[in-house]
């Protein structure tokens, strides 16, 4: 009868935290492997356009980024859309040097696979984009990617 009745006070045993560091280390390694370091600090406002016929960019090492948008710091830089290469504003004619430098940093076999990802704010007018595209053609960086969000562009356009 008294098989299930245990006399005496039940003492609450504390949960052992000895394995907590291991768990956290596991998480740490997971994040270290799956993520990449932030490339640049954005200096321009960037809200991507939407499209649904997109492809994923495979190899991050082969991708260079060009940002175009209105400067975040309006008081100093005004509201005209600007090009950002690496960590600073640039003029269209600096793109050729930028591409050359990026290409130099790649292995010889990978150079033809180099892709330029254009991260352009959706409000930007095509004039500056066309200038950038012409410069890219001059630098013969012909593989480009218009970075977009997933979604239906017609719905987005009919919103305004």
């Amino acid at each position, binding site marked *: 009868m008294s098989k299930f009745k245990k006399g005496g006070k039940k003492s609450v045993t504390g949960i052992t935290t000895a394995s907590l560091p291991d768990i956290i280390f596991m998480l740490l390694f997971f994040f270290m492997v799956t993520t990449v370091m932030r490339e640049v600090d954005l200096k321009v406002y960037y809200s991507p*356009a939407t499209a649904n*016929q997109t492809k*994923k960019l495979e190899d991050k090492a082969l991708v260079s980024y060009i940002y175009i948008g209105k400067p975040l710091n309006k008081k100093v830089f005004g509201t005209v859309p600007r090009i950002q290469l690496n960590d600073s504003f640039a003029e269209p004619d600096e793109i050729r040097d930028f591409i050359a430098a990026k290409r130099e940093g790649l292995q010889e076999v990978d150079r033809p696979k180099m892709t330029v990802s254009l991260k*352009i704010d959706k409000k*930007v007018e095509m*004039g500056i984009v066309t200038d950038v595209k012409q410069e890219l053609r001059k630098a013969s960086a*012909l593989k480009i*990617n218009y*970075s977009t969000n997933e979604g239906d562009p017609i719905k987005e*356009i009919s919103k305004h």
Partner: protein
Amino acid sequence: MARREIQEINAGSMADIAFLLLIFFLVSTTMDTDSGILTKLPPMPEETKDEQVDVKERNIFVVLVNRNDQLLVEGELMNIKDLREATKEFILNPNNDPNLPAKEIVEVDYFGPMEVTKKHVISIQNDRGTSYEMYIAVQNEISAAINELRDNLSMKKFGVKFEELTGDENEKKREAVEAIIPRNISEAEPKNVGG
């Protein structure tokens, strides 16, 4: 001599150290995968050569976008919603319309002789004032038209979508579909379309 006890290192703060590292990596890294519309720019023409490619008028599908983001397709004002269907009709020319691109009989692997509008060109021209959002929308719709046609064809013949025809063993099949529905998009040299 008294034997010294070997003291154990207190590992209680190990979790805190690991947390600190974890938070550092969470903040300083990004996880977003970059996706977008992949295209290839045409190479810069050599200045000595003044190339004039002769394309018959019926084979060109002209898409103009003006600075107010309005579309002019083949000389008519069009809503972007209708662009996909118009592009499909242009590529396929199902009713042998004399104003739509001419068909040629081409021998294709797996399919045999097919009537293909081989010489068609889709020409996109935009103004410097066109918004980037609209430009992407036009690119997207035209890509969508081509992808849907390829999917249809691939579904009918091979039972799988075009994008699922991957790997070396399917390369011939991919080429066959691409031969029937080619992707000929031309972006004009920049100029002011006006409006």
